[in-house]
């Protein structure tokens, strides 16, 4: 089987060089682009299976490129952002980015996010009904949750939120998406409801609910279920 091809887009030579070696270590085939124009052309020509995209390119606004890439390739886009501002990240996700990492990043973190994004793409093709996360097993088909050997009872809302996270294991799901799916009739964004549901889920699933390992909060953006991939 051929190696998975990843398009790496960054204007900084050093970052490109580093990520190139990180990606090769992860067993990917890498093609590089320095500018947005180049990225769009390579994306159309080589049909990569994933894109690593720096949002601070000189020739085009980062958010704009996401849209243009989306029109050219179905490959998941992993965004690298130097900005901390959460609304920028949320916008990138809303426009179709699969996930993001913030500079300075950890190379293992980049590989983990990439794996999750690629897995998610495969899962769309043929969904994996069982998700493992540490001691916890989530059986989406039978709606059964076990922790160790014990079955865990969830309320409808709790299951519904967990299910949404488990459908994208390892990937961040924005507050907005979770709220829309689970509280469609609330005019206001009731983030507080969501927080309470997550808190209850952690009580039932985490070893130490005070320092969560399974359901991770992404500041101001959303939640991520850390699953075994």
């Amino acid at each position: 089987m051929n190696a998975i091809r990843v398009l790496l887009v960054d204007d900084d030579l050093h970052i490109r060089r580093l990520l190139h070696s990180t990606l090769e270590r992860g067993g990917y085939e890498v093609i590089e682009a320095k500018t947005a124009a180049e990225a769009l052309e390579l994306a159309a020509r080589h049909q990569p299976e994933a894109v690593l995209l720096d949002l601070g390119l000189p020739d085009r606004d980062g958010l704009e490129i996401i849209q243009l890439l989306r029109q050219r390739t179905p490959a998941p886009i992993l965004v690298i952002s130097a900005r901390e501002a959460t609304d920028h990240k949320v916008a990138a996700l809303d426009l179709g980015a699969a996930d993001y990492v913030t500079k300075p990043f950890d190379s293992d973190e980049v590989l983990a996010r990439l794996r999750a994004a690629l897995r998610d793409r495969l899962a769309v093709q043929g969904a994996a009904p069982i998700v493992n996360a540490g001691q916890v097993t989530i059986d989406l088909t039978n709606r059964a949750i076990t922790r160790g050997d014990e079955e865990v009872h969830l309320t409808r809302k709790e299951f519904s939120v967990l299910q949404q996270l488990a459908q994208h294991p390892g990937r961040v799901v924005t507050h907005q998406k979770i709220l829309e799916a689970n509280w469609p009739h609330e005019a206001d964004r009731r983030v507080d409801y969501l927080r309470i549901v997550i808190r209850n889920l952690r009580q039932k699933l985490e070893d130490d609910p005070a320092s969560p390992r399974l359901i991770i909060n992404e500041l101001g953006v959303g939640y991520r279920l850390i699953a075994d991939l």
Partner: protein
Amino acid sequence: MTDRDRPAPEAFLRAAAQEGRGKLKIFLGAAPGVGKTYEMLSEGAARRRAGVDVVVGVVETHGRAETQALTHDLEILPRRSEPYQGRVLDEMDLDALLERRPQLALVDELAHTNAPGSRHPKRYQDVEELLAAGIDVYSTINVQHIESLNDIVASFTRIRVRETVPDSVLEQAEIEVVDIPPDELIERLKEGKVYLPHEATRALGHFFSKSNLSALRELALRRAAQAVDAQMLEHLRANALGGTWAGSERIVVAVSELSGADGLVRAAKRIADALHAPWTAVHIETARTRQFDPEDHKRVAAVLALATQLGGQVATLPAASVTEGLKTFLTDARATQLIVGKSSRSRLFELRHGSVVDRLVRQTPDVAVHVLPLKPATADVPARSRKRKRSLGDWGAPSGYVYTSLMVAGVTAAGSSLFHILDLGNVALLFLLPVMAAASLFGLRTGLFAGLLSSLAYNFFFLPPTGTLTVNNPENVISIIVLLGVAAVTSQLTSRVRLQADLAATSARTNAALAGYLREITALNDADEVARAACVEIARLLAVKVVLLKQSETGFAIQAASEAGFDLETMELAAAQWVSDTGQPAGRGTATLTASDWRFQPLQAGERILGVLGLARDDGGDPVRSDQLALLASLIDQTALALERLRLETEMRDVDTVRERDRLRAALLSSVSHDLRTPLTSVLAAAAELRRTREDPLLETIESEAMRLNRFVANLLDMTRVEAGALKLNIEPVDLTDAVASAVHDTRRSLEGHAIQLEVAPDLPLVRVDPQLFHHCLLNLLDNAGRYGNPGSPITVRAERRYDDLLLSVLDEGVGVPPGREDEVFETFRRLEGSDRSISGTGLGLAIVKGFAEAMGMTVSATNRTDRTGAVFTIGFPERLLVRGSDQELDI
């Protein structure tokens, strides 16, 4: 066919342009929540049931179930996403809608501003394009978004909306008012049925007061009526229908110098109020006006001032006669009702001159004429009898009598030399010459004098018996009477003509003066120059002293004056200050502080008082004559407008400067953060890669120092934000568990070796904070604990609920803070020397904690531990930052 009756060509053109063009219908509401969208959708649904092809272009249901339900039957066009500054804005897809070409498109919120990058900046321009493509459009708007009403609404609600729609858009539309009583709307608001943007709730609380809503509602209804009126005018013009169609009422009250006119003005106000109609008090200046004494001028001025006070417009119109003037004014103003007073003139006077009222009723058949009796106050009677006497005219210049005598002597001489060829009657005709000349050149009295002198000369020199003043033939008496009669009539006629010419000249002079004044002051670009020019020009035009006072930083003071180096007394300054505070005129010739020689008028633009204009005459007389009042009012208006224009320009420039500065700062911060982080990322990642293959303590140094550098950069940026004083908060409910876990995760490298003990109970209430800023607070507190705590000592994070607040503390085991100097640790660049050990740090961390925490409404404090040595840093969340009920089990 006269010009007036022919259809106006531009009206035809407009009508032609309308054909083949879509029709616009606007649902107009007084305030959010009256149900415009609901109404629009129901009508749209009804049209669809009737077989019309209806598409929803864009609609904001704000999640209201009843409204949402209405959209089920309708085809809804998907929206177009427009990314903007990190957000994604959904906009109406204009191109898709044009392509779809429905017969009728429903487009909510006409005043909406499109996301940058859209084809048109405003939604009404999208609608314009739909209409041009022949698509009918239904849309909605609130009354405060109408351009011409924006100011009015802002003036009483104190909320100015930035999104406005020009009135021209409304003028081509059919308007339907969606109306519910204010009480009902307030009820709906309380029940949460009105959608409001979350951040605007507090500001809008004031907006939704009953008085505001009533006023808004009235505005909406009136605007709709006005639209109907405008369309009617258009229709009239296109079809050249004569006459006035009363879509809404317009009332005119005619005022004269006679006492009792104030009663007419009050009556007009009452009638106008009852009809919700605009009204105007008009004074017609005729030849007679020139003969007014100061008392008359004062009365007219007072009545016009009263009309202004009662909210009416005032106008003064020069005309040949009262009837003519009123007729012109009524037609121009498209008045529907006229109020006139009936004076107690004698029957004889009416027989001779005809009643003004009768003539008005005959000549303006479309106007309803109210005739009210004039009730003069008793104190005014002497004034009127005095006038009777005065109407005989002036005595005229003495030189006139000399010339007249010479002329009569000349005619007498000529008559005696020609007496042998002329008969007696023709000699009498000769005497008409000096009489007519004197009467037309020097006025009535000189004319009568000429008549008298002529008849005496005729009698003495020519009538038998000559050389005496006796008359023996009765027919010669008639000659004398004719001579006197001719003198009277001629002088009357010529004086009338002269007065009218004077009047026209005055009016032309006034207009020329105003135009010149306007040119003068609009050319200036500096408020001080405008003030100076205004003083000098007004002084010249009205022949008075003028001073302009203004509120400045140093107090209320003279800004400019018509002549240099004169000062006002304390009392005058107080009067001017009063005018500035109340917006009412004061001083000589007004109702207030009349003892002063000065008259002070406010310079007012809208609600704002820009300054006070003071006028006085050197001789201490009345500064302004009543016939100058209209001119003065215009001059003041123009001055105020010029000053207001300059003020707005300055304000605009200031706003632009601030905006530009903010934009630059944001751009700088973002590029600094990008440019510094990118190399740091490379360094860190490179070190991490190397560590995979090689064991070297130097690599660890590279990594940890680069991490520290990264925190410094972040802190510097944060400090810039705190000091700029403009933190943009993005508040949301946050679980402290999440916040602490994220912070611990992000500081795991710099806290290596320290055990982190978390004492955060899982059932604490959520807190309302900006997650990003709060994260930075925690990072800095943990970082601080790591640096000042003894190596290898544990760090504790503890959150506890107290009676009415919540405390989050970070506890370390180290030297602690020097007692008595606890507050100082939060100061910028403060690093307290507690030990010999030099500890690295920028001294910014705790200052950022304090800056951010206080911006979010939290408190910070530092103390020493009581159980062991070490410091405790505590963030306090007051009750209002806690999310109520979130610590209880919710059934969700």
